[in-house]
């Protein structure tokens, strides 16, 4: 039988205790065990950034982190960004600037930028491009994403 452990983690403010296979990565746990399918697995080797979630506030690739390493951690996924149906400023800016097309990479961009803009509230365009340089988008050419991030940063500073 596969090796298992019991882990407890908080995801989007809710606590879960699950028995998981030790070889399952965090993305597997979120998607398979917790039914939080908003976290997408794009490359499974840590290059595309689609599966990025926040672990204790830091952007982490959930395909590169074992689920058992998330024991005791506080996780935020794409499902935890909006306030009910009310998009947060970053999400709304993505919509306004057409920062997404197919939407598959979008959760990773949103989580990456959530952590980045929290720590860097007044970035330049070049800095935003650098911040998302570990995330691949095949659809948009990035221009809408960068515009959205700049707009959202400006709005969040103005609050």
């Amino acid at each position, binding site marked *: 039988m596969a090796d298992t452990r019991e882990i407890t983690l908080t995801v989007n403010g809710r606590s879960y205790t699950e028995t998981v296979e030790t070889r399952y990565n965090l993305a597997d746990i979120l998607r398979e065990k917790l039914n*939080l399918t*908003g976290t997408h697995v794009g490359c499974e080797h840590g290059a595309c950034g689609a599966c990025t979630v926040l672990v204790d506030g830091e952007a982490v690739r959930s395909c590169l982190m074992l689920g058992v390493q998330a024991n005791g951690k506080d996780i935020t996924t794409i499902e935890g960004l909006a306030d009910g149906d009310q998009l947060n400023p970053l*999400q709304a800016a993505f919509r306004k600037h057409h920062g997404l097309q197919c939407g598959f990479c979008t959760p990773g961009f949103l989580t990456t930028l959530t952590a980045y803009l929290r720590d860097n509230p007044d970035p330049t365009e070049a800095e935003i491009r650098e911040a998302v340089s570990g995330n691949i988008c095949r659809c948009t050419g990035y221009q809408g994403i960068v515009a959205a991030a700049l707009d959202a940063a400006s709005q969040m500073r103005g609050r």
Partner: protein
Amino acid sequence: MGVRLTGAEVQRGEDQALLTGRGQYVDDLKLLGMLHGAYLRSPHAHAVIKSIDTSAAEALLGVHAVFTYRDLEEPVNGRQVQPYPNPLIAQDITPYPLAKDEVCFVGEAVAFVVAETRHIAEDALPLIQVEYETLPPIVRLREAMDDDAPKAHKDSPDNLIAQLNIIYGDVEPAFAKAEHVFKAEFLQHRGGCHAMEGRGVVAQHDSFGDEFTIWSATQCPYLVRRCLANQFDLPESRIQVIAPDVGGGFGPKAGFYVEEIITPWAARKLGRPIKWIEDRKEHFTTTNTQRDTWWELEVAATAKGRIEAIRGRLVNDNGAYVPYGILLPFTMMAPFPGPYKILALDLTQDVVFTNTVSNSPVRGAGRPNAAYAIERMIELVSRELGIDTAEVRRRNFVEKADFPYQTGLIHFNGRAMTYDSGDYHSLLEKALSLADYDGFAARQEAARKEGRYLGIGVSSCVEDTGMGPYEGVTIRVDPKGKIYVSSGAASQGQGHKTVLKQIIADELGVDMDDIHVDIGDTGKFPQGVGTIGSRVGVNIGTAAFGAAAEIREKALALAAEVLETDIDNLVFEDGLVRDKGRSNITISLGEIALKLAPMAGVAVPAGHMASLEATSFDASKGPPHASGTNVCEVEVDIGTGEVKLLNYCVAHDCGKKLNPLIVEGQIIGGVVHGIGNALFEEMIYDDSGQPQNVNYGEYLLPLATEMPPINIVHHETPSPLNPLGLKGAGEGGTIPAANAVIAAIESALRDFDVTVDRYPVTPEYLCNLIDAGQA
């Protein structure tokens, strides 16, 4: 009547779910009792299978079955159905659903494991023992036609799939009396799909009616249904194919794949739903890519830079199989002569097999290849004659007065290739102006004084879009006045639902929020073609417009009876039929729908169809031709060969824009895809046919840090071929991009007399050219 939505920057309705993690992609689907599959794939580019022993894999706890070719019965065990048969295909070889006795590329499916979880299915793969006897592979396209070349298929006489020729005008006389003849040879590589979501299939079989439901990350659910019905010898009505949210397509997801046969077949065999999700390595090795094309072209020109004729040949590496007919090879030649009035052309193409993954259209299909080849001729003439490249274009463009302009070729719809409308000269001038082309010489000179090398490149194109036959739309009004729309065309992020709502909201005078749209589900709309070739906006736009007009006519006719007046006294506005003479007398769409609703015992008014609905398959009367000119400015580091993209300008004509937000997103994304082709993307095989770079550390995709600002100016020439004046916009960014970048690199390195003869242009390649130029 409110502000017109069609043509406005309407934010997409699709985004709310996608931004909050509630998208529904294939891998998000969970069905009761669902098992998980994994494919064992060939490690060899070419080999004979001597034996397969699945016993150890079958014995693994949690494994339900291991299937090989021998388990398949007729007719499923036949070669994969050819979706696009063509008599010009000399060797129409598609793969068997699982390899029968020969494997022809690294990654070919050999066995299928079905297990409780994906982890267990993958655990079982190395337990399958396959004995191979390797055969020599053919890997390089330029060797494929050599007499002693290994054959990609052991029983084939040669590696030729098809030879195509297109010819018009007096080619040989034009060359015989030409003032100048120039020649160029070059290699193109387009790279793969690399949608961030790979392929994936979930299949369920209902034994009660022998019916399949298949969810697939596909661009063409109807094509999958048609091929499956053929492969299983079942009526199409027993197969429902659903393309849910699909995470990007870009061409390779428009085909039909063996996993779409085997996954449902196994689900029927085991009586359980099965999910198979492609992993990224499989994406590199098994999802069709657009492989190499080799060109040898000659151009006959006058001393003033007028091009009188082009002739030459190309060799197109089609990979191991022919999964897509010869649509792609055809689209490499049909776009000639581009936006130029070139009166004689003779091109021959050899389409050849190699032992690499099969060839597929990638964004633009063969059009970016053809556009690049044509633009290379412009660059060649410009360089050899010392005439500015923009000026060479001006001297050769089809004139505005020439439309409709017949090129001399035949479109694959069988009719004369006809450019319906355009204004290539204005597009060029707008692009040059946006890029400050006139100021470039000063910028270049200033940079040179600092030891920096700037270059500028221009590239123009014309694109046949909106191909038929149709992409239908049904509009149904319910008694509450809600509008239900269904259409075939699946979306991979292009915003089809939003665009349909915009048009229908305008045409019926209703609120977008009262419109519900279903797309990409063969169970909800009877027939469709697919999201390929920049065709959907044109086709669904035209059909939605037609269906809405029919709804208005039906509503007016019934309203005239209900209101006991003549139809000429009525007007349709804001979702209501109003009596012009008695403005307080109105009847809503919902009230009209109620008259036609299925109420027990109540008669449908005589002469009216049950249900207030309309279906239109109206389509553009021919392919509307989009066009564009791109200008790219670069800086090349002559020490490292690094190319920095400084600025990118696009002048684009896609006729009337349905939604500028979406159009610009398509253009920018398309340009970046073309930049990736020019500078980054290359699927590398070694001489034994082993893929060398199956990860995103080694296969480079464009990243945010490398992309320049992309500036767009529009120039609308509405197409006369459809009522909304539409032309496609999905690929026009990609098509001209490679030459814009590469011509800019050559411009930057003119001191070194650099001519680029292949792409992607890697730093190493460029350093070698610079070194050779310095020597």
